[in-house]
C-alpha cells in the first residue's frame, strides 16, 4: 500500500499543477498602469512555489515508494548529511527565495501605497453602504462638499448626507451609481464608509482596499483600457453582501466628458 500512496501523491501533484501550467484559470486581464508589477510578482511566486510543491510531493512519494513495507528490511540508514543538510537546505534555499520574493514584491506594493498620486490626478469619492456603492465627483469648483451623517436619506437619494443649502461646495457635486473615469488618467479615489466595513475590489484594476468606518482612506490608480468592469464588495457586510456591486466604466476622454455632462443634467 506504500507504493499506492506514492503513486497517488505524485498523480495528485501532477493533476494539481496541470491547470496552472496550461493557464486554465488565468487572472483577470490587467487594465491598470501598476498591475503588471503584481502580475510579475505572482508569476515569479508561482514558479518558486510550484517548484517547491512538486519537489516536496515527488520526494515524499519516491521515499515512501522505496522504503515502505520493505520485504527485506535491511539496516536502518540515514540520509547522507542528516539533519544538517535539511536545515542548510531550508535556510539557504527557502531563505533566499523568501528574501528575493519579499524584496522584489515591495516594488508593487510601494508603487501603490508609498507614492502619492500626481498633482493632476482626478479626485473622486466613493462611499460604501449596505449594499451599494455611490460615487461623488467634485464638479467645476474642484471641491467636495462636507458630509453630514444626520442628513443621509436614502428616500431622497441624499446618500452622502450633503447639505447644498448651507454648503456652497456641495452644490455642484455630482453623485452617480457608476464609477465613470477617463482612460489613462490617474484617479485619486477617496474612500468613505457610511455604515460598516466594506471593500472595493476590481480584479482587472488590481485594486482591493477595505472601507474602514471612521477612517477615510485613499487609493490611486490609472486605468489603461476602456471597458466596463465589475466593482465588488469583498468585506462581509451583511445579508446582501453577495449582491453588493457597481460598475467601473473606463471611457475615452471625449466619452467621459459626454457621460459627465449627462450625469450633471440628471442631478
Amino acid at each position: 500500500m506504500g507504493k499506492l500512496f506514492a503513486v497517488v501523491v505524485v498523480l495528485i501533484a501532477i493533476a494539481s499543477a496541470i491547470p496552472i501550467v496550461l493557464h486554465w484559470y488565468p487572472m483577470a486581464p490587467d487594465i491598470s498602469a501598476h498591475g503588471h508589477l503584481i502580475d510579475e510578482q505572482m508569476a515569479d511566486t508561482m514558479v518558486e512555489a510550484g517548484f517547491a510543491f512538486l519537489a516536496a510531493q515527488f520526494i515524499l512519494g519516491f521515499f515512501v515508494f522505496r522504503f515502505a513495507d520493505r520485504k527485506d528490511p535491511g539496516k536502518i540508514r540515514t540520509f547522507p548529511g542528516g539533519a544538517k543538510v535539511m536545515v542548510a537546505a531550508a535556510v539557504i534555499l527557502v531563505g533566499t527565495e523568501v528574501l528575493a520574493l519579499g524584496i522584489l514584491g515591495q516594488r508593487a506594493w510601494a508603487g501603490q501605497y508609498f507614492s502619492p498620486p500626481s498633482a493632476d490626478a482626478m479626485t473622486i469619492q466613493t462611499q460604501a453602504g449596505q449594499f451599494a456603492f455611490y460615487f461623488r465627483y467634485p464638479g467645476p469648483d474642484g471641491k467636495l462638499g462636507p458630509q453630514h451623517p444626520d442628513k443621509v436619506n436614502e428616500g431622497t437619494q441624499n446618500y452622502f448626507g450633503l447639505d447644498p443649502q448651507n454648503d456652497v461646495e456641495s452644490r455642484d457635486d455630482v453623485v452617480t451609481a457608476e464609477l465613470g473615469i477617463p482612460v489613462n488618467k490617474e484617479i485619486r479615489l477617496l474612500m468613505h464608509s457610511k455604515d460598516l466595513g466594506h471593500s472595493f475590489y476590481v480584479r482587472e484594476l488590481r485594486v482591493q482596499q477595505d472601507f474602514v468606518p471612521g477612517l477615510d482612506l485613499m487609493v490611486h490608480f490609472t486605468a489603461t483600457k476602456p471597458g466596463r468592469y465589475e466593482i465588488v464588495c469583498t468585506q462581509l457586510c451583511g445579508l446582501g453582501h453577495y449582491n453588493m456591486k457597481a460598475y467601473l466604466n473606463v471611457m475615452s476622454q471625449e466619452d467621459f466628458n459626454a457621460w459627465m455632462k449627462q450625469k450633471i443634467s440628471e442631478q
Partner: protein
Amino acid sequence: MSDVDSTHAVAHHAPPQGFIRKHIFSLDHKVIGLQYYGLGLVAVFIAIFLSWLMRIHLVWPNSRIPGLHLLSSAGAPGDVMTPEYYLSILTMHGTLMVFFVLTNAPFAAFGNYFLPIQIGAEDMAFPRFNMMSFWTTFVAFCVLISAFFIPDGPPISGWTAYAPLSAVGGAAGPGLAYGQTLWAISIGIFCIASLLGALNFIATTLDLRAKGMTMMRMPLCTWAWFITSCIALLAFAVLLPACVLLCLDRLAGTSFFISSGLVINDQVLPHSGGSTLLWQHMFWFFGHPEVYIAILPAAGIVSHILINSLRRPLLSHKVVIGSMLAIAFLSYVVWGHHMFISGMNPFSSLAFSFPTLIITIPATILTLIWVGSIYGSRLRITSASLFALGFISLFVSGGVSGFFLAQPSIDIYLHATYFVVGHFHLVMGVAAVFGIFAGTYFWFPKMTGHMMNETLGKIHFWGTFIGAYCIFMPFHYLGMIGNVRRYSTFVDDYLQPYLGVHKFITFAALTTGAFQLIFLVNLIYSRFKGPKAPVNPWECTSLEWTVPSPPPWDNFGGVHPVVYHDPYQYGIESSTGDYVMQTDPANIVVERDEK
C-alpha cells in the same frame, strides 16, 4: 536531572466512585480527554453537515433541502435557504471547526489523555481545573449552538466577527441581535476554558515529569502540546478581553469598536470614538497563533506516529523542537498579514510580511526532517501512518500557497478570494484533521482497549485524502480568477463559466463527508466489537505503551515509572525487537546523528 520532581507521585485524588464521578464530572485526565474528543466529534459532524448545506446552496441556490425549515423557518422558508441564512451557517461552520474541533481535538483531547502518561504522571497538575476546563468548554458549546434555536438565528458576521458589523446590533441584519451576543459570550467562555487548560498543561509538563524524564526526553507530541499551551495562554488572553469589549459595545452601549457618524437605515448610530481596526488587531493577535494551536499538536502527533512507523528516530529531535519553538515565537509577530488591505498603515504591511515569509523556514525544516527521515527507514503502512504521510503532503500543499498570501502586493489581488479559503482549509483544517485521524487510529487501542478495523481505516484514508484535494485544490484556481469568498450565490457575470468547478467541489465535499461516516462506524463498531488490544500493539517506545489498555485510573497502578532513555530508541537490536522502551533499564548505546 535535578529538575525532575521525584515527589510528584502523591495521589491527587482518590479512585472515583459512582457513575457520575467516573464518567461525567470526572477528575481523571483520561476521561476528560475522551470527553473533549467526544465534544470535538459532535462538533465536527455538525460542522460537516453545515458545509454540505453551504455547498448545496452555492451551486443550487433555489433548491429545496427537505426538512431544512425545521432548523430555521425564517432562514429556510419552504426549505429553500435564504442568502442571510447561508451566512449564519458559514459563521457556525467556521466557529465550530476552529474552536470546538481544531482547538479541542488535537490539543485538548489527545493532550489531556496522553501528556500526563507520556511524562509518567498520575494525572494533571490540577485535576479540578481540568474538569472545569472541559465543562466550561461544554457550556461554551451549548451557548453557541443555542443560537440556532433563537428567533433571529446565528450571527451572519463570519467566524472572524469583524466589527462594526458584529458590534452594532440587530439593525445591521439578522442574527446580529441575540445570535451575535450568544456568539461573543460563547467564545468568551471558551477563552476562559482554554486558559485554564493551557495553565494546567504547562504546570503538568514542568512539574510532574517522572524520574529521569528530562525535557529533552519528552516525546515530540508532548513537546508540541507544551508549546501549544504556551501559545494558547498568550493568545486566548487577548481574545477574552476582545470578546468582553464586544459584549460591552453590544449590551452596554460602549463604543470600543464603533466609530462616530455611522448611519444605518438613515439613523445615525449613538456611538463615537471607537476603532474598527482595534477589533481586527485583537482578533488576529489571537487568530494567527490559533492557526498554530491547531497545527502544532497535529505536527507533534504526526512526528510521534511517523517515528514509530519508520522504526527510526527523526533525523534530529532537537531541530524539530527548535523549529516548533521558532514557529510558536513567529506566530506572534505575523498577525498583520491578515490585514494588508484593511487600511492599517501600509508600512506595517511590510513589517508583517517579512516574518510571515520567514516562518516558511522552520516549516520547511520540519517538512524536510520528516521526509528525509523516511529515507533508509523500514516504513510500516498502517491507517495511522497513512494519515501521518497524508498530513505531510497536505502541510506542503497548504503551505506553499502561503508564499502568495504573505506578500502584500499579491494579496491585493488574492485577498478575500477562494485562494485564501483553499489555503487555510488545507494547511490548518485538513492537515490538522489528518493529525487527529492519525492520532485516533494510533491511540484508539490504548484509549478503549480495542483495535480499530484497519481495512475500514484505509478506505477512510483514501476517500478523505483524495477527496480533500478534490475539494480544496480547485479553491485555489477559483481564487486565481478572482472568485470572491463569503458570497451566498455567484451573481457576477464573470463567474458563470466557473459554476461547473463549484459543482465539482460540491460533489467532492458530499462524497468526502460521506467517507467520514465510515470512520464513525469504525469508531463505534471497534469500541464494542474490535479485537482486544495488547499493551503495545505498535511496538512503540513511549510511556503510554507500558500501561494496560485502557490504563487504570491512576495510570501506572501506584508504581512510579523511571525513565532511562531518549523517547525514540528504534532501529537497534534488543531482546524485545528493534526498539527499547523508555522505561527499560537496558544499558544501550544508540548511535545518533547529532548530539
